[in-house]
């Protein structure tokens, strides 16, 4: 029994950098966001000016949010103009019935254990692309727009309010916009679970070194021949 190893460079540096900055930002945003909504650890009795607990959490939340947005825009640029085979939108066409055809169905059947074969993709498989689009792309856009609209509220008539303040009209009131911002934030931990599970599973089942690929950039295909 011999093993031959095929190596493929999949995730180019911009994609990997985006991934890790994004991971750090989302983690930081989620934790600080939870604190802002339900603050804990009240400082002891004293002068308010001695502490800046909520101020710091908000400061980190807003600061990280701008890094998160910049990173997202950078990734968007890379997806559109990066000429990166595995990091662009080109293959993702959910509006076309063809896209939902054979490869998608086979991947779905494989995940549902209806089919035995495990399709192996160097880039994202169609289901992964769809999940990524719904959770990360749409989720980020939603958090960006609602977040900027809320951020603009501290200075009505200012830049952020002028360009993003209209978002509040979709939700009716600022309070419901806050509620939905909070609700959609939970999309990210849900995605994290799916993401980590899928990565580890593919690593074990397909032995494609997908876990390390987001650090090294290389995926492997193990072909067994007897």
């Amino acid at each position: 029994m011999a093993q031959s190893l095929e190596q493929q460079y999949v995730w180019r540096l911009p994609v990997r950098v985006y991934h890790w900055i994004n991971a750090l930002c989302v983690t930081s945003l989620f934790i600080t966001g939870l604190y802002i909504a339900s603050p804990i650890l009240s400082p002891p009795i004293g002068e308010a000016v001695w502490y800046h607990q909520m101020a710091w959490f908000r400061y980190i939340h807003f600061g990280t949010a701008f890094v998160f947005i910049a990173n997202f825009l950078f990734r968007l640029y890379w997806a559109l103009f990066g000429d990166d085979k595995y990091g662009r939108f080109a293959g993702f066409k959910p509006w076309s019935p063809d896209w939902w055809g054979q490869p998608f169905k086979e991947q779905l059947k494989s995940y549902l254990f209806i089919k035995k074969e495990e399709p192996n993709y160097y880039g994202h498989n169609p289901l992964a692309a769809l999940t990524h689009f719904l959770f990360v792309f749409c989720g980020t856009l939603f958090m960006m727009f609602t977040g900027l609209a809320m951020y603009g509220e501290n200075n009505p008539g200012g830049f952020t309010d002028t360009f993003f303040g209209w978002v509040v009209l979709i939700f009716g009131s600022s309070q419901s916009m806050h509620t939905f911002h909070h609700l959609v934030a939970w999309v990210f931990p849900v995605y994290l679970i799916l993401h980590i599970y899928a990565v580890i599973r593919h690593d074990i089942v397909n032995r494609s070194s997908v876990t390390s690929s987001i650090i090294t950039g290389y995926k492997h295909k193990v072909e067994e021949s007897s």
Partner: protein
Amino acid sequence: MKKETTYADIFESRGVNRRDFLKFCSLMSVYLGYASTFVPKFVHAMETKPRIPVIWLHGLECTCCTESFIRSSHPITEDIIFNMISLDYQETLSAAAGHQLEAVRKQIMKEYKGKYILAVEGNAPTKDDGVYCMINGESFTNVLKETAADALAVIAWGSCASFGCVQNAKPNPTGATPVHKIIKNKLLVNVPGCPPIAEVMTGVITHFLTFGKLPELDRLKRPKAFYGTRIHDKCYRRPFFDAGMFVESFDDEAANKGWCLYKMGCKGPTTFNSCSTVKWNGGTSFPIQAGHPCLGCSEPGFWDNGPFYTRLANVSFLGTNSNADKIGMVAVGAAAAGMAAHAVVTAIKKNRQNSETAKIEEG
């Protein structure tokens, strides 16, 4: 030619001296956010402009706007306002009633066509031909449309008229509809609040009288001068918010010391109003100063963003009332359970495959 009565004439006849009159003009220009150089403009307008007739309609409402309005704090504000505008039709305050009063309304609409202000308190139930609010045998929706047709401008008093308030909270049984959704092609200003602050109400009218136009409005058609900032941003308890010092229950030490009421459900951070600056009852106090969280009464749909005493709003989820965190944790739990189950099936499948290959190799 009969000289039209101006405000200055009225002040004089009411025995208001010039000093108090000028005080009033300065106060109003400050409330409206104008520089002191604008005071002469207010004075000039008050001295020269004739009184504007106001028709004040009551729809589906509780009359709290009227109650607030007649308690406008500045001692002469109240007096001046009631003389400044000729409040010819006001169901609560008018001495006349019934057909007589309706006749007055019709007369103003005819005599001052396109020149009167329509102030609306409350909203219009539109379901079942508007039978849920009838005035003199006519549905309020029709009265509103008829009166608005020839009005110069429409002022929507209070949260009811502006956004719907409790009447159009879910499930909105009477189809209560705020004024701006019924009257679309008129100058309209929303003055939300349950009720709005008296000085805000008089301020809006004064602005209209002085400049002949509505004050600058924001996206929700509220005057920016009064609804430009959140209560939170000008709250005197804001330092406690930034410090992270919060009241945890109404009888704890933090409550006694006047810390931030954020965790008690204060809606100040999402409510645009001037309670924390203008305050109530002549600048005496406002809810947060009295130790009670803001309910967000001047925000659209504030009844549906409850409960009042928790920070996170309830969201109906699978027939239950949960908040965003509870729903999120259920979703994360479901995802984790789903993945665990998937992992188990994958392991079983892999085992079976391994044993199959082992069999083949053995065979």
